């Protein structure tokens, strides 16, 4: 009887350690498998930040956002992924979508597109990190 209890405890301990180890080392979850919390146009998203940044931060920061707009520029960084700027109708900035590692596809200026990514805030442009294109 004692042997059984010991065995069950040992299995529980090993399983617990394994789960803990897995959770600790878990990589970032890709945007492919995440649901958008907010769906918005590039124009509206930029306008929210432009009119009241603190309020927009409270609404969008860290959220998975699906944003649609027309591609204004594509900048190819030397190492890594392209960043795609969506037109927001403003003179000063737009919505910049930084593609996630391993995301490829053909993009062209003037194309209408939707990206899903995590909103990280606004510098000159409103920024979305780890973006994937949405069909």
């Amino acid at each position, binding site marked *: 009887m004692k042997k059984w209890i010991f065995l069950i405890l040992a299995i529980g301990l090993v399983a617990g350690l394994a789960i803990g180890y897995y959770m600790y080392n878990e990589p970032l979850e890709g945007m492919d498998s995440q649901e958008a919390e907010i769906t918005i146009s590039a124009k509206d998203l930029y306008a929210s930040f432009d009119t009241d940044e603190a309020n927009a931060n409270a609404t969008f920061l860290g959220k998975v956002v699906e944003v649609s707009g027309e591609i204004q520029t594509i900048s190819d960084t030397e190492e890594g992924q392209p*960043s795609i700027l969506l037109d927001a109708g403003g003179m000063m900035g737009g919505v910049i979508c930084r593609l996630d590692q391993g995301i490829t596809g053909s993009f062209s200026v003037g194309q209408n597109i939707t990206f899903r990514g995590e909103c990280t*805030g606004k510098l000159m442009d409103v920024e979305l990190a780890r973006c994937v294109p949405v069909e």
Partner: protein
Amino acid sequence: MKKILFLIALATVSVTSLSAQKYFTRDGMISFSASTPLETIEPTNKGATAVIDAATGVVEFAVLIKGFIFEKALMQEHFNENYLQSGKYPKATFKGKIVDAESIKWTKNGTYPVNVKGIMTLHGVSKEIKTTATIQVSGGRIIATSNFELPLSDYEISIPSVVADKISKTAKVKVEVALAELKR
């Protein structure tokens, strides 16, 4: 009337010539290491904004804290929620000056070691820092690089004692930005 028109024209010309001496990027790379023998912590942010004014040597950098990408989800969560409080302080900025900017020939290819001094604002704390940097002029583009250390305690970033051995008390920051002439 003619005088006014002339003044407006002159003002437009001088503004244009001034802005032509600025270099800019929105795709700058800033990474840091807070690794210890127990843990590798090396996140990267590829969305830094940087402006260098060639005429005055004034430099401005800005980066979004949530734009730092870690390998482990839990690490990124702790970094944002507990250590840097990026919901409250979403940006880090540096505003300063290349002290010896006159040594740089902005229109001629070459590599120039320089000194930079300015105010770093991080986690709501502003502090003066000094560092060395390299300005490389190459085919009309500017590549600016710098390495410096930021002690976490300077910016009131506290690490709980449970994980204190895993996280370095000083972040080794690496800046690597390629800037193009700002056209209006």
